[in-house]
């Protein structure tokens, strides 16, 4: 009753508005970019290992390919870290998701290790940690998740929103 009265009054005089803003500019967060970046890291490690096990190691082709794989591995490890930092810093709230801090710290460490080394084990741990982060993220959105192998190499098990 009172609200209807105020709505009618608002149409005539227009009350001042108080904005209950969500995040700006877009509020669009999605961990899939970080997940794909982590997968790319492992893929590059696999390509590096395959190249290393080949016979032609002193050719220009070898060095060219190895250089490219290492560069892409570097870029995507950093990209994964960046994307996680954005979601962690802009989306999660410390008091509501206290366990995320430790997980994000672990992801940062693993991302750095993937840049510093060619350890596939570190790459797999990075993928797993970011999957864990994705599961928590989708849970906060009330979206169920499912696990499935990525439909491309390396076909690791990933967490996907079950939309």
């Amino acid at each position, binding site marked *: 009753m009172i609200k209807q009265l105020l709505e009618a009054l608002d149409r005539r005089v227009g009350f001042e508005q*108080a*904005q209950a803003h969500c995040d700006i500019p877009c*509020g669009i967060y999605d961990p899939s970019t970080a997940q794909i970046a982590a997968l790319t890291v492992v893929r590059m490690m696999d390509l590096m290992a395959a190249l290393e096990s080949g016979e032609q190691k002193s050719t220009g082709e070898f060095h060219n390919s190895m250089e490219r794989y290492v560069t892409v591995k570097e870029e995507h490890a950093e990209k994964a870290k960046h994307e996680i930092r954005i979601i962690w810093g802009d989306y999660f709230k410390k008091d509501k998701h206290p366990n995320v801090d430790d997980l994000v710290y672990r992801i940062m460490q693993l991302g750095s290790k993937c840049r510093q080394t060619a350890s596939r084990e570190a790459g797999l741990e990075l993928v797993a940690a970011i999957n864990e982060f994705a599961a928590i993220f989708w849970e906060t959105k009330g979206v169920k998740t499912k696990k499935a192998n990525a439909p491309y190499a390396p076909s690791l098990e990933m967490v996907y929103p079950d939309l």
Partner: protein
Amino acid sequence: MLRILKITGQSMLPEYQDGDFVVIAAAPVFLRRLKAGDVVVFGHESYGTLIKKIERVAEDGNLIVSGTRADSLDSRRLGPIALDKVRGKVIWHIR
């Protein structure tokens, strides 16, 4: 002094919905006693007039604010809110 304001946006869901009205009080007796959990309306130089919940009152008296949703704009982006920016405390929520 009392004012009526209309809420726009989603950051205070589910308690405060887009289109609800609030009555705010700006009398010093209300603003001196602000505490965590109170809902306030304040002016922000970048975002205009905002309504948010007080997370806590900092030691220097500034307010750390947030919405009630995980993706709400809050003091991490807005910064601490100085008391002189507070337009009033919500004393009546009309939904």
